[in-house]
């Protein structure tokens, strides 16, 4: 579904590239998480996979990014028209402001795509159900909680039925309830076959939900694998990230001799329960 080859990108007026020599293959339907310290290139990768780099941000590009049959490097944003969805951290900025109810806000993208009205209505109902926003359909988008607004942002792009959904730290401004709502929505989405790429800091959440994690450092991919391998790897702190509490507690238990050293370290709560059982 996604094929990135030798991709290097430098922002305008920047002295060094933000992404270097990225090679990445993502099969359709995968839930891929991208982690890394601030400035490692997570956001830039998100913008690249959704066509905003280079068209929107300008700058210099080397290499190719293929999503489906499209080479994003050569495709202007206007032509992508809803094939790839992008959601980012601030819910407020993702409300267009040009519509007065949630339902109309969801229709905005479809109106731009020229979808006939009869087709719009069932699509909107479907996406309201998928994101759990049915009861809020007639509310103003500004009268929602942060978590609800973020679900609306996701719904607003999902209603256009993109093949790929890219999210750049969507829970960073949300409280724990909002975070849970977003991850539950992402789970529901992957069940429909959408490919999801999620840049996140909340390692405990992606440990549970992601199929695969790549770790970025200085614009390069330095680790790529199952959440278990990447998050339990002892080198994680050298890239500016702290392992999950479960992993930290487990490591401590091993060094104290409470648990045999050959047990695989847990990264999620479920694994931790198994790890700490006799």
């Amino acid at each position, binding site marked *: 579904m996604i094929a990135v080859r030798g991709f290097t990108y430098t*922002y*305008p*007026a*920047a002295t060094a590239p933000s992404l270097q020599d990225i090679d990445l293959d993502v099969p359709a339907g995968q839930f891929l998480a991208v982690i890394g310290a601030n400035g490692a290139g997570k956001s830039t990768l998100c913008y690249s996979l959704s066509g905003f780099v280079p068209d*929107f*941000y*300008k700058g210099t590009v080397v290499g190719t990014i293929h999503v489906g049959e499209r080479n994003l490097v050569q495709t202007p944003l206007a032509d992508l028209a809803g094939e790839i969805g992008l959601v980012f951290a601030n819910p407020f900025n993702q409300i267009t*402001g040009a519509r007065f109810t949630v339902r109309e806000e969801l229709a905005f993208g479809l109106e731009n795509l020229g979808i006939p009205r009869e087709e719009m209505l069932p699509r909107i109902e479907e996406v309201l159900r998928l994101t759990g926003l049915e009861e809020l359909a007639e509310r103003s988008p500004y009268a929602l909680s942060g978590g609800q607004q973020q679900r609306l942002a996701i719904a607003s792009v999902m209603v256009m039925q993109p093949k790929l959904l890219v999210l750049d730290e969507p829970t960073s401004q949300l409280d724990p309830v909002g975070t849970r709502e977003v991850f539950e929505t992402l789970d529901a989405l992957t069940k429909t076959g959408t490919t999801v790429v999620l840049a996140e800091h909340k390692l405990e959440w992606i440990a549970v939900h992601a199929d695969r994690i790549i770790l970025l450092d200085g614009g390069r991919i330095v680790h790529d694998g199952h959440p278990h391998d990447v998050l339990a790897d002892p080198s994680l702190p050298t890239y500016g990230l702290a392992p999950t509490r479960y992993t930290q507690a487990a490591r401590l238990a091993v060094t104290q001799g409470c648990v045999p050293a050959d047990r695989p370290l847990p990264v999620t709560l479920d694994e931790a329960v198994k790890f700490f059982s006799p």
Partner: protein
Amino acid sequence: MKRSFNTLTLALIPVAIAINIAIGQIIVLLKIPIYLDSIGTVLVGMLAGPLAGLITGALTNLIWGLSGLNPTYTPFFYVAAVIGLLAGIFTRIGWARRIWMWALGGLITGVVAAILSAPTSAIVFGGVTGAGTDLIVAALRASGAGIMQATFGQGIVSDPLDKLATFLVVFLIVLALPLRLRVRFPNAEHLPK
């Protein structure tokens, strides 16, 4: 129209109008005898060009008035439009690169605004502003000036100073913008370094 406005400009305009209104209302709150209701308009003109500035100005007054906040603003939409237009033109001809030329542009804009407001003020509002500045109108009328002249006289005292201050504030703001954002606006090459 959309192709001549990139999306960044389009996203800028509502925010600029909101800035105009928010600052304008606070001026009233702080009871400062100045308008300062065109900061957003001049900003758009400077960053995105004359047409964008014109639209920002016109819509500011129409929305400010029709939203019920201050209906007396609505008939002057064309004045605000010209302010945005001039800000864009002055930037395109390079006046934004030097602060003293930019200040001159502000003064000229103020004079033009006073000239353009006078007819509407005279015809619709009887040549008065309903505010403290009417003392100027009264003095001029008492000394024999005509209705249009008196209202223009009031304008020529208030407007150039107000627009000069507006232009200078916008200059400071644009200098403070991060470079990587500035380069993406249509008027990028004409902006001050």
